[in-house]
């Protein structure tokens, strides 16, 4: 491949589009001028051809460093903020890391990584760099325990869905996401902002939700993405009022009809869509008809994404999937036909497929397999319910029973709790097999959400 054919992030940016910015709660940086600036203290050339660990405490410097490093470094490993430091040594060995970009250089003195480059704001003026190579993007899976897997992508694979959709109509979007951009879901939004000629407003884990939404409004955010759990929290907070994004996007968890309807009611003028993507499988598809699940004719080959269902699990083959797990003893990422097994279990009803849960998330109820998500979807459809979590509880009689924690919609009269409980149980009995009907329903104020924005199921 000649260098002319390689597009790095810098080649999607240019000074011709004015007023583009990337910002967080503290700083605003111009994307229009970014190609003649550096957050790496002008040391980018030292990182040429290196395997770089991107270990920064904030998203803004991370995003700016990605723009500089892409097309220069041989590979870069993105560290999400919740990475367990005890796993760093194993990841550094598996990815062959020989340089680190950090804002805590003292921590890396004597670490064995030979090159330590400090990233700092504000950016300084520098001569624009030229793309040298196709950098390998390494991301970490968000699994629950053990060392996360390293997933290898190229920029071409990461941006495949964005390029396929073509440029957005109308004014350049201002994107925001509740995700961290060092995770797949958040990175997709960062890349969309760069490729679309738009701007990006980053999240801040220390910021109250109301302040975050106020910031999104003040910066003119038009396109917002998050998990269904992120969106349910926003709906519960009451902060959605007076915010009117043009596009509301859900991904990362099952978008059930209740959350889609809730968002449509809260944002009547917005288009509400859900997307299916994972770190390994890449972006599969987007659904924009306002309904949960996806049309059955999405299976087969559609716009270069091939999908099939094997043993109930969705498998995907496309140029947007990751190309490998990286490291010693890394497992194969695809089956022998090149399909990624998503582990997401789907079920066909009529002319549509519905997500019923994760293969790894099955709970055992008296010897029968139950997907907690399937129960939650029924509970969530009750108009007074905002969010729920089903899990198993030990029983001396049957081994296990289903119990559910439920958050009621804001402003629900607590005196109605008993009636609502009876109504939820009636609905569950009408729509679910008897062993899936919760034995106990508890009303709670909050449910834990992981740093990756997903409902925490660790004790399930």
């Amino acid at each position, binding site marked *: 491949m000649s260098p002319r054919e390689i597009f790095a992030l810098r080649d999607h940016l240019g000074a011709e589009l004015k007023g583009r910015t990337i910002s967080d709660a503290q700083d605003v940086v111009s994307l229009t001028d970014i190609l003649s600036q550096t957050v790496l203290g002008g040391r980018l050339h030292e990182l040429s051809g290196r395997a770089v660990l991107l270990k920064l405490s904030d998203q803004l410097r991370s995003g700016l460093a990605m723009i500089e490093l892409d097309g220069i470094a041989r590979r870069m490993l993105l560290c999400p903020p919740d990475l367990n430091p005890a796993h760093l040594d194993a990841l550094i060995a598996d990815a062959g890391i020989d340089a680190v970009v950090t804002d805590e250089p003292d921590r890396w003195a004597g670490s064995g990584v030979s090159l330590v480059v400090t990233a700092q704001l504000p950016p300084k003026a520098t001569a624009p760099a030229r793309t040298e190579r196709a950098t390998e993007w390494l991301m970490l899976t968000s699994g629950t325990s053990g060392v996360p897997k390293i997933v290898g992508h190229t920029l071409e694979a990461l941006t495949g869905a964005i390029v396929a959709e073509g440029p957005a109509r109308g004014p350049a979007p201002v994107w925001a996401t509740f995700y961290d951009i060092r995770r797949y879901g958040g990175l997709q939004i960062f890349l969309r902002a760069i490729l679309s000629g738009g701007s990006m407003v980053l999240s801040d884990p220390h910021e109250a939700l109301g302040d975050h939404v106020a910031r999104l409004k003040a910066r003119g955010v038009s396109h917002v993405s998050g998990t269904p759990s992120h969106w349910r929290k926003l709906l519960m907070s009451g902060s959605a009022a007076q915010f009117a994004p043009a596009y509301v996007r859900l991904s990362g968890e099952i978008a059930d009809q209740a959350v889609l309807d809730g968002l449509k009611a809260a944002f009547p003028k917005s288009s509400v869509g859900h997307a299916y993507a994972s770190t390994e499988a890449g972006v599969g598809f987007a659904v924009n008809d306002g309904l949960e699940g996806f049309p059955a004719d999405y299976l087969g080959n559609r716009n270069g994404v091939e999908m099939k269902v094997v043993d109930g699990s969705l498998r995907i083959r496309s140029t947007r999937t990751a190309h490998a797990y990286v490291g010693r003893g890394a497992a194969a990422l695809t089956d022998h036909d090149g399909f990624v097994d998503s582990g997401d279990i789907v079920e066909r009803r009529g002319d549509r497929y519905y997500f019923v849960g994760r293969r790894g998330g099955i709970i055992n109820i*008296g010897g029968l397999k139950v997907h907690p998500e399937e129960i939650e979807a029924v509970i969530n459809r009750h108009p007074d319910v905002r969010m729920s979590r089903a899990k198993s*509880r*030990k*029983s*001396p*009689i*049957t081994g296990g*029973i289903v*119990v559910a924690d439920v958050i009621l919609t804001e402003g629900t009269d607590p005196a109605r709790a008993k009636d609502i409980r*009876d109504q939820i*149980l009636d609905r569950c*009995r009408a729509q679910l097999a*008897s*062993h899936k009907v919760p*034995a*106990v329903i*508890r009303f709670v104020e909050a449910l834990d959400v992981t740093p990756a924005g997903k409902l925490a199921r660790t004790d399930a």
Partner: protein
Amino acid sequence: MSVRSKVIEAIRQIAKEQKVALPELSDDLSLHETGFDSLAFAILVARLEDDTGVDPFTISEDAAFPATVGDFVRAYENVPA
């Protein structure tokens, strides 16, 4: 509310939910004759644990599951405080 009335009320509530036609409840009635299946009993034990704070069938490893309604009620009444 006494332990006994808590247990009896929970049985009636679950019978209603599970559409079980309960015979008249007496201490001599065998649990089998209540019409409850194992799932209904599992629900009963879980709810009583939430309500009373105890699960007499998990506390003691050798506790035999009761045979009659009276035995079942006494299992809750006899839990040491």
